[in-house]
């Protein structure tokens, strides 16, 4: 690479290059690492207290943002009611289990036929250790957590055009990339190419570090042998007694590796959002929503479809339909309103706020995303391929295959995430029926795991633009849109404040919903205190 070009490459050019080379999952990871998706600001429990006497709050939406608001405002002494469109709490925090029935927009109904205990998370599925906000509520509500495996060195990276379409072990590609680059740099050092930039003394240290980080041999070469096999594994592993001696493996040639483009799939776990340790609730992400629902109990009114939001000098009146009684009209009123309805839906609901907030609500498109859960008759990825949790990345439209981070060695059936799709391919998968999505995921996945053909049992597919309660996956802010509308979206308008991942700098993550909610209710509480007692 031309040094001058590389130094002047803009962030945008880099993203474009990554986007062209790899799948959209890579792009998202790149975005995360470049600060487009920022880290959480959660520091400590909010501990609001001292609500004005008799003050009330109406919360719209029993997703994570809404339930955090309800939980904390009730604790502060407010009278709280929550209106929820679905028959369950959680919103996008959701797991589909055996026996669940899901009808998406268009009337396509799926009956989940997974074995008992098996599930798929159609929405969020992993929690980075630094998402301390959502983790705080897991602890507080007694939701048991277990490790989510992000990086599995024995999973695959796969390109349909490289190595004859044969998936490569992540461990091989990662070790070989690091090894070859280290060797290259070691040669440059030894050939005095770096003399102007690195002192003699530092060159010695650099060479030592390259040998260590790249698994080079004593001649600073990355070649088949013990050093490299300790990273990439052996062709025949060491054994005991009179077993055959270990046979080292042979690295992939550097040129082949670069041509394959597979290097674009090995850095996911290095990104801040994906670094060890990650967590998942035992029994599915939806356990968090269920725990909140248990805690809030009868505060939540289900089947409530908001059709009008009207504020006046003394409070907010929300008109809603009980979806079990089509055409019915009910109203709820409170002094204040925390509105967590996704912008995709809120933009269609009459609400008398100022032009600035209204424009912001109307401005944000929603991203497409699709997940497909596949049940197989046995956990062949463990039994045949020794893959326990983690993710295989591919340039096929399914983007990745993720193996369950729980239930290892279970002799029964197993469910894996057979597709997690963003961007254009997600739009296309959305346009299919659920059955077509499952069949396509099985078809593509069988290029990586031929066992699919005989072991596939049944599947479930969720396309977020067909979700009746969100009409999309998450608010797709661009930098330009944020500059123009974000502050207006988040400002309190009279007696209404918005919250949710769409009102955060951590889009699509539950932590965005938590931090957005805490920030919103903190400001609302201050305003309520300043306004004084019950109006």
């Amino acid at each position, binding site marked *: 690479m031309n040094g001058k070009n590389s130094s002047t490459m803009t962030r945008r050019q880099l993203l474009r290059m990554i986007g062209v080379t790899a799948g959209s999952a890579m792009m998202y990871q790149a975005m995360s690492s470049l600060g487009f998706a920022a880290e959480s600001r959660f520091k400590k429990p909010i501990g609001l207290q001292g609500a004005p006497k008799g003050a009330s709050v109406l919360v719209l939406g029993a997703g994570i943002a809404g339930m955090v608001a309800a939980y904390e405002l009730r604790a502060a002494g407010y009278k709280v009611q929550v209106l929820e469109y679905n028959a369950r709490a959680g919103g996008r925090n959701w797991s589909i289990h055996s026996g669940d029935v899901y009808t998406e927009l268009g009337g396509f109904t799926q009956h989940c036929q997974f074995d008992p205990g098996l599930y798929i998370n159609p929405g969020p599925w992993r929690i980075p250790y630094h998402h301390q906000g959502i983790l705080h509520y897991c602890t507080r509500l007694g939701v048991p957590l277990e490790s989510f495996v992000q990086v599995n060195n024995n999973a695959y990276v796969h390109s*349909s055009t490289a190595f004859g379409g044969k998936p490569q072990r992540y461990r091989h590609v990662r070790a070989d990339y690091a090894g070859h680059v280290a060797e290259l740099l070691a040669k440059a050092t030894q050939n005095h190419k770096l003399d102007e930039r690195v002192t003699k003394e530092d060159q010695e240290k650099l060479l030592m570090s390259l040998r260590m980080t790249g698994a080079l041999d004593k001649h600073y070469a990355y070649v088949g042998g013990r050093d490299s096999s300790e990273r990439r594994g052996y062709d025949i592993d060491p054994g005991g007694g009179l077993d055959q001696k270990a046979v080292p493996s042979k690295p992939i040639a550097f040129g082949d590796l670069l041509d394959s483009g597979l290097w674009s799939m090995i850095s996911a776990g290095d990104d801040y959002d994906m670094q060890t340790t990650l967590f998942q609730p035992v029994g599915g992400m939806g356990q968090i929503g269920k725990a909140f629902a248990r805690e809030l109990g009868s505060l939540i009114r289900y089947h409530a479809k908001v059709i009008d939001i009207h504020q006046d000098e003394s409070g907010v009146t929300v008109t809603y339909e009980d979806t079990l009684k089509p055409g019915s009209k009910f109203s709820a009123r409170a002094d204040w309103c925390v509105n967590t309805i996704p912008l*995709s839906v809120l933009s269609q609901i009459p609400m008398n706020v100022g032009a600035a907030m209204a424009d912001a609500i109307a401005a944000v*498109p929603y991203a497409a995303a699709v997940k497909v859960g596949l049940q197989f008759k046995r956990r062949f990825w463990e039994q045949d391929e020794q893959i326990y949790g983690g993710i295989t990345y591919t340039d096929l439209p399914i983007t990745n295959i993720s193996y369950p981070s729980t239930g290892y060695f279970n002799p029964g059936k197993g469910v894996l995430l057979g597709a997690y799709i963003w961007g254009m*391919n997600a739009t*296309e998968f959305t346009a*299919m029926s659920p059955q077509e999505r499952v069949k396509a995921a099985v*078809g593509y996945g069988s290029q990586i795991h031929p066992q699919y053909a005989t072991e596939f049992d049944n599947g479930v597919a969720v396309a977020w633009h067909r979700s009746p309660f969100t*009409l999309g996956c998450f608010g797709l802010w661009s930098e*330009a*849109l944020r500059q123009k509308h974000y502050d207006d979206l988040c400002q309190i308008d009279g007696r209404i404040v918005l919250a949710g991942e769409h009102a955060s700098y951590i889009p699509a993550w539950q932590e965005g919903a938590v931090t957005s909610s805490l920030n919103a209710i903190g400001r609302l509480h201050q305003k309520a205190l300043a306004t004084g007692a019950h109006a």
Partner: protein
Amino acid sequence: MIRTRTPLHACVLVCALLLGAGLPGTARADSAGIYNPATLKAANGEQVYTHICQGCHMPDGKGAEGAGRYPAFVGNPKLASASYMAVTVLYGRHDMPSFMTNLREDEEAKFMRSAELSDAQIAEVINFIRTHFGNHYPDSLSAADVAALHPKAH
């Protein structure tokens, strides 16, 4: 129509699976499989509809309603204005993203944002919608009409 980056056998397999789905009223009208940005350029109006639009507006063009709704193309008076439809596809509306090619916006957002259609494709899919789903509008839209609605045209 074969994906340029996928081995032939893969596409044949997937296409066979799609065709074999046999679900009345839900199957696609063609066997194009899954597009990539390059192969999408060859999609005609009907293919754009069945591969993209029907995700929200549904295979029967009746739209859908949940907590919010997707507009129907059946009996919708707004379809009288082909230009209104073109502006919607070019710039997006509410949660619907823009489908314009080379919309001037962040690369980050653009990559995540579904598909890019040419002016000709936008015109074709609008003409398709306005002559299907019970619609019989006699006038049609051209690629030049769509191009005239670009930001630079003003």
